[in-house]
């Protein structure tokens, strides 16, 4: 095997000139030097939650890291790469146009049918579809061979992952190594993004500027590239959508928002083409946007890239590119590919058989498949030479160490032609030449010290002032609503558990304590924090103690609730600033860990305190940082309804106690509603049903009381409803009036204790009514329609003859 080339050091041990600026800057770093900066980078990645921006091959927890040593590329060398990749993009475009059109390449034998017909990315319904262009963006993975030439090891036109990571990396480098970023004259990344936004705006039609005309289609929050899609959508100022948010009607594509359907003109798809339209692209599931191909054919939406473009990723394709290039473009292929053999060619097969260890074999027509042993028909297989990537310096053990690197570059078609991002994503490779989780920024040296390129010259008419957030996609509103509910549910659960724990840890329990534990157990049971058999019987509370600990353990209710909160935070990430995201994420992560480790009541109590503080933190950050209306409304609404339902249930269960024991019910009610101090301030030590229940039920100024929640919900709903149908806010108002009536009844009764006991069933009914209101909100704003289903695949519907 040939010897890998070193990016920084030439064959005679001398530093290559374009690295000298960086090395000079490194050597003059003050205390701690580069190692200290690496530590800062790791921490910044962790804290900003950008650790998830790049899908790691290992998928190890927190595995993505940024090496403080960038990969430096000379201007002339980058120019060669940019030109070579632009040619390759033109070539792939021409090939796609032929394969989705006349298929002359197959008739002339320039490409074997095995690369096309068995390829799941060849989408037959896209054949002969009027298409101006198949590729709008393109990414290539490269290595530099021992002979010094760069070679393409992979073409990406569907996922094109890593672009957002490039911008995140550059931001972190500028922040962590400002000396180096200032010293080395490198080309900026911004103009590429400006150009991209301009391309999208032009494609969308400027007359609709400001509306949700451009959307990035993501597989969704569970996908490894979710964070990448969030960042990209933000950088490109477009809506982030999942298939369920989009619908095709009357020959056009729409995004479902709270205000109704907003037209989408350009869809940046990050989904494999075959998953886009369940009606026409087959498959056995109804997932996707049914009718999407129709709206593409109708010309009302453009996909970047074309759904069928994935054909260009076939692993066997590079074997034919030199011939295709001269046939389709009349040019020689500038940039070589990693040596690729199509095993349907007898000579290639013989070469592979003679030296199998030098290659990795892949199904020739299946992008993204794992390497394997060629079996069956060799015509369905391709073999790619194991690369010998060049070495670049990487920080290891305090010093620089040469390690193999791969380079990913990104291109955009900007109507004039293909332009290459002057920067990219380098990754340290493993011994197979495959990228690992350690990435590097890529610095392209600028020849002119300052590259001045203003933002797009596209003229956009002045925007109409808007103060509402009607464009909020329904799915986002749904997620925020449930985020609000679940954070509050965590808070309520933690408070309930904490109150129980406090009584259980008293040295000797008085009869009053026992009564309170019994009442609390009923509430815990209702909140599904414990099981019926764990309710203490005849003084034995050991099962209850164990149950409380278990709630925070793996699989326990608190653990699952906090996991659901974490998922919803991720799902709403595009609505949260970096600081908010950190505030919503980091304390939760710590608390979850503390709960898992909590073995003693004291440790559990401390962890529960952490949860309570987390919930207030989320509320505070949201209150201080989110613009009112839209996103904030739904987050707050979720919290108000959850708290309202929880307080109603709590009071309902506590007041079920016989009237004689009303006092312990009131003590608990005040404690759990965080209203002890207020009560004491107002009434000193006299505890009576009427004033206590007035405080936790009807007092409109108590933010933990029932009337407050329902009043807030009414106002929020009225804001969301605007001039529309006021049914929902009216329901909230009626519920609040019920609460006031109940409190007034207790206050006017001769025997307050009996009256309090009497309203218990009505409070439990109120909990159910709040649940019904929540469902009504969901029906009106979120789940517009039931999930799609496929017809025509049942036995009864097929030809039976």
């Amino acid at each position, binding site marked *: 095997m040939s010897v890998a080339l070193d990016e920084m050091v030439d064959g005679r041990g001398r530093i290559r000139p374009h690295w000298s600026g960086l090395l000079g800057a490194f050597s003059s770093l003050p205390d701690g030097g580069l190692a200290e900066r690496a530590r800062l980078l790791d921490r910044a990645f962790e804290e900003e939650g950008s650790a998830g921006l790049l899908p790691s091959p290992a998928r190890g927890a927190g595995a993505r890291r940024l090496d403080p040593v960038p990969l430096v590329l000379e201007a002339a060398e980058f120019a060669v790469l940019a030109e070579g990749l632009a040619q390759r993009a033109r070539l792939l475009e021409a090939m796609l146009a032929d394969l989705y059109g006349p*298929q002359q390449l*197959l*008739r002339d*034998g320039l490409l*074997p*049918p*095995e690369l*096309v*017909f*068995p390829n799941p990315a060849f989408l*037959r*319904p896209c*054949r*002969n579809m009027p298409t101006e262009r198949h590729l709008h963006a393109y990414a290539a993975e490269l290595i530099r061979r021992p002979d010094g030439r760069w070679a393409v090891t992979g073409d990406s036109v569907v996922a094109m992952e890593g672009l957002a990571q490039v911008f995140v990396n550059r931001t972190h480098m500028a922040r962590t190594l400002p000396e180096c970023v200032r010293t080395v004259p490198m080309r900026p990344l911004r103009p590429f993004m400006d150009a991209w936004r301009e391309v999208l705006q032009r494609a969308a039609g400027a007359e609709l500027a400001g509306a949700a005309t451009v959307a990035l289609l993501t597989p969704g929050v569970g996908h490894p590239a979710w964070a990448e899609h969030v960042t990209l959508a933000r950088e490109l100022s477009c809506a982030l959508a999942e298939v369920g948010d989009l*619908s*095709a*009607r*009357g*020959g056009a594509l729409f995004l479902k928002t709270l205000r109704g359907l907003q037209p989408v003109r350009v869809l940046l798809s990050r989904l494999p083409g075959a998953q886009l339209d*369940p*009606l*026409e692209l*087959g*498959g*056995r599931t*109804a997932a996707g946007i*049914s*009718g999407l191909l*129709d709206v593409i*054919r109708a010309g009302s939406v453009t996909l970047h890239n074309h759904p069928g473009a994935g054909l260009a990723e076939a692993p066997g394709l590079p074997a034919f590119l030199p011939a295709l290039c001269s046939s389709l473009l009349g040019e020689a292929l500038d940039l070589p590919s990693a040596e690729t053999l199509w095993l349907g060619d007898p000579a290639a097969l013989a070469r592979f058989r003679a030296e199998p260890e030098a290659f990795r074999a892949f199904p020739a027509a299946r992008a993204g498949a794992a390497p394997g042993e060629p079996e*069956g028909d060799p015509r369905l297989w391709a073999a790619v030479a194991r690369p010998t990537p060049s070495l670049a310096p990487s920080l290891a053990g305090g010093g620089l160490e040469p390690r193999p690197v791969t380079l990913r570059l990104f291109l955009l078609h900007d109507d004039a032609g293909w332009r290459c991002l002057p920067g990219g994503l380098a990754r340290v490779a493993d011994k197979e030449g495959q990228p690992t989780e350690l990435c590097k920024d890529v610095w392209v040296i600028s020849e002119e010290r300052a590259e001045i390129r203003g933002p797009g010259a596209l003229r956009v008419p002045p925007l109409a002032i808007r103060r509402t957030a009607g464009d909020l996609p329904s799915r986002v509103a749904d997620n925020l609503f449930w985020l609000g509910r679940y954070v509050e549910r965590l808070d309520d659960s933690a408070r309930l558990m904490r109150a129980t724990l406090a009584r259980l840890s008293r040295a000797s329990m008085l009869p009053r304590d026992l009564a309170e534990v019994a009442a609390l157990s009923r509430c815990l049971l209702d909140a599904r924090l414990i099981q019926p058999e764990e309710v203490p019987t005849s003084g034995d509370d050991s099962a209850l103690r164990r149950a409380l600990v278990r709630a925070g353990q793996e699989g326990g209710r608190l653990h699952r609730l906090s996991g659901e909160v974490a998922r919803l935070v991720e799902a709403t990430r595009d609505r949260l600033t970096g600081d908010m995201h950190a505030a919503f994420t980091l304390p939760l992560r710590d608390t979850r860990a503390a709960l898992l480790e909590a073995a003693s009541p004291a440790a559990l109590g401390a962890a529960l305190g952490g949860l309570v503080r987390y919930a207030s933190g989320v509320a505070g950050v949201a209150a201080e940082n989110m613009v009112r209306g839209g996103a904030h409304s739904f987050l707050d609404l979720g919290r108000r309804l959850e708290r309202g339902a929880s307080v109603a249930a709590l009071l309902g269960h506590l007041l079920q106690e016989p009237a004689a024991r009303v006092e312990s019910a009131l003590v608990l009610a005040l404690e759990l509603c965080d209203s002890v101090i207020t009560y004491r301030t107002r009434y000193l030590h006299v505890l009576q049903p009427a004033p206590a229940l007035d405080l936790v039920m009807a007092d409109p100024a108590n933010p933990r009381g029932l009337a407050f929640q329902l009043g807030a919900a009414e106002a929020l709903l009225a804001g969301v409803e605007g001039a529309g149908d006021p049914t929902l806010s009216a329901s909230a108002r009626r519920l609040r009036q019920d609460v006031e009536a109940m409190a007034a009844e207790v206050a006017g009764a001769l025997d307050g204790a009996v009256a309090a006991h009497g309203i218990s069933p009505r409070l439990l009914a109120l909990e159910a009514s709040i649940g019904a209101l929540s469902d009504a909100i969901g029906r009106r704003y979120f789940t517009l*329609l*039931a*999930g*799609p*289903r*496929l*017809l*025509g*695949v*049942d*036995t*009864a*519907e*097929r*030809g*039976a*003859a």
Partner: protein
Amino acid sequence: MIYRVRHVTAYAYERPVEMATHLLHLLPRPLTRQRVLQASLTSDPLPTRREEGLDHFGNPTAWFYLDRPHTRFSVTADSLVEVTAPAAMPESTPPWEAIREAALRDPDVAEFLFPSPALPPVPAARDFFAPHFPPRRAAGAAMVEMIAHFRDNMAFRAGVTTVSTPVEEVLRRRAGVCQDFAHLMITGLRMLGIPARYVSGYIRTRPPPGGVRRVGADQSHAWVAAWLGAETGWVEMDPTNSLFVRDEHVVLGWGRDFGDVSPLLGVILGGGRHSVSVGVDMDEPAAVPG
């Protein structure tokens, strides 16, 4: 022969369907041996948007889009078709082993050599047909023998298979319906290197005077076309009835397997449970209009 075919598919939904998209392969495909004299396609309720065109395989295709709530949906395809028997298979056909190489040179044919979504390779399917393909036998002769013996140990039985029953299962049960038999034969032929496609359409089940009643329940039918070299081209065979197609079949279209030419596909939003009824009437009109 002139046939009138009326194909009605009716869906009833438990709850309103809010939106529906339908892809229809219900119009007869014009061919040299099949003249489409009349064809109409209509639905109740009418679609809010309707498109027509040809699919990748050249089959007539229609798209119906409904975006108003509805609790039932029926589609009626009505056509009048004149069918003539294809030319007889030539005396001499190439040896079956030579067909694969020839097919790879023509993309329109090569496509049908490869496994398709519903039909992955099944070695047992190749073994099932292999006895009819001894070395160097003429492809045409092999087909004649294969089709003549197909029904010897296969039972036509409705209800034992579903649309997604794999070919292995059909082989194991030795029973199924037209679609199963077509899928089995296609899989075997492809594995032997012979391009094979799935043909969707109808068969006349009422026998002509003195003739034999064909198997079929006045419903959609499916059969197979195999490519026997550039000279002979595609030859259509009906495994369910163990015969070569003459003038008793009406072609709607063809594809790699059922999935490409399913008569009526749909994606609906809402609807709850649904029921469907399908009725096909095929007859020979006494008087042909105009």
